[in-house]
């Protein structure tokens, strides 16, 4: 099905952009009339994926992050967060709760679990050396 609307934004992997990214996607999603709870779930999931690109994808470097969000009729929202960073070797292991390769003072290995809990679908494509794309889907229910 063709998306009824979409946005695409690209920004450098600076942590100052984390707030901008989640608010921009939330503002776009608001066209589907989500509840306050749905909006905060979308914001949190986007924040997790963007933070992962910044801290894991571009660990010692900086690079572009591209977010594409699409809204389909019936309230299906898809969001992809793409980086051209290091990539992930073992995606299944990376998605396990509490698994982290990060600094344990700063990371707890819960990012993917949070995305999976707050969104209806989470898909990860990644190749070592060429980057990671996280695709999130949420169905925003119509309200009377």
């Amino acid at each position, binding site marked *: 099905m063709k998306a009824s609307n979409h946005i695409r934004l690209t920004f450098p992997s600076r*942590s*100052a952009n*984390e*707030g901008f990214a*989640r608010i921009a996607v939330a503002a776009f999603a608001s066209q589907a009339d989500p509840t306050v*709870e749905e909006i*905060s*779930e979308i*914001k*949190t999931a986007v*924040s*997790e994926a963007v*933070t992962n690109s*910044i*801290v894991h994808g571009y660990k010692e470097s900086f690079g572009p992050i591209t977010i594409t969000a699409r809204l389909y009729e019936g309230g299906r929202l898809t969001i992809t967060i793409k980086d051209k960073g290091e990539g992930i070797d073992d995606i299944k292991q990376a998605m396990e*709760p*509490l698994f982290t390769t990060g600094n*344990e*003072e*700063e*990371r*707890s290995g*819960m*990012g993917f*679990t*949070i995305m999976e*809990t*707050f969104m209806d679908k989470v898909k990860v494509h990644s190749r070592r050396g060429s980057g990671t794309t996280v695709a999130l889907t949420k169905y925003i229910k119509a309200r009377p």
Partner: protein
Amino acid sequence: MNLKFIQNYNELEVHLQGEIDHHCAAAVAKTIDFKIRRHRPILLIMDFGGVSFMDSSGLAIVMGRRKLMDSIDGSVEVRHLCNPAKKIFEMAQLDRYVTVRKEV
């Protein structure tokens, strides 16, 4: 993110206000740790009542402070959690490491 501290006897209360993400996390941790080292409280109370957004970076902030409080034989209590931060704490089973006050 804004932090307000209240010190009463051997308790240190920190009121977190605003958005908690990776961007502000290191500064938040550093500021709270500075206060802990200075006052050496028995109990650190972290009040999330003013938090409008939190992601997994908030978990590491709590776990890191609990580690520091442990090292001075103190403990941590978390207050006024509401969704989605509350759900995130539950996913990570943080109540195994810190006291989560039951709100009435």
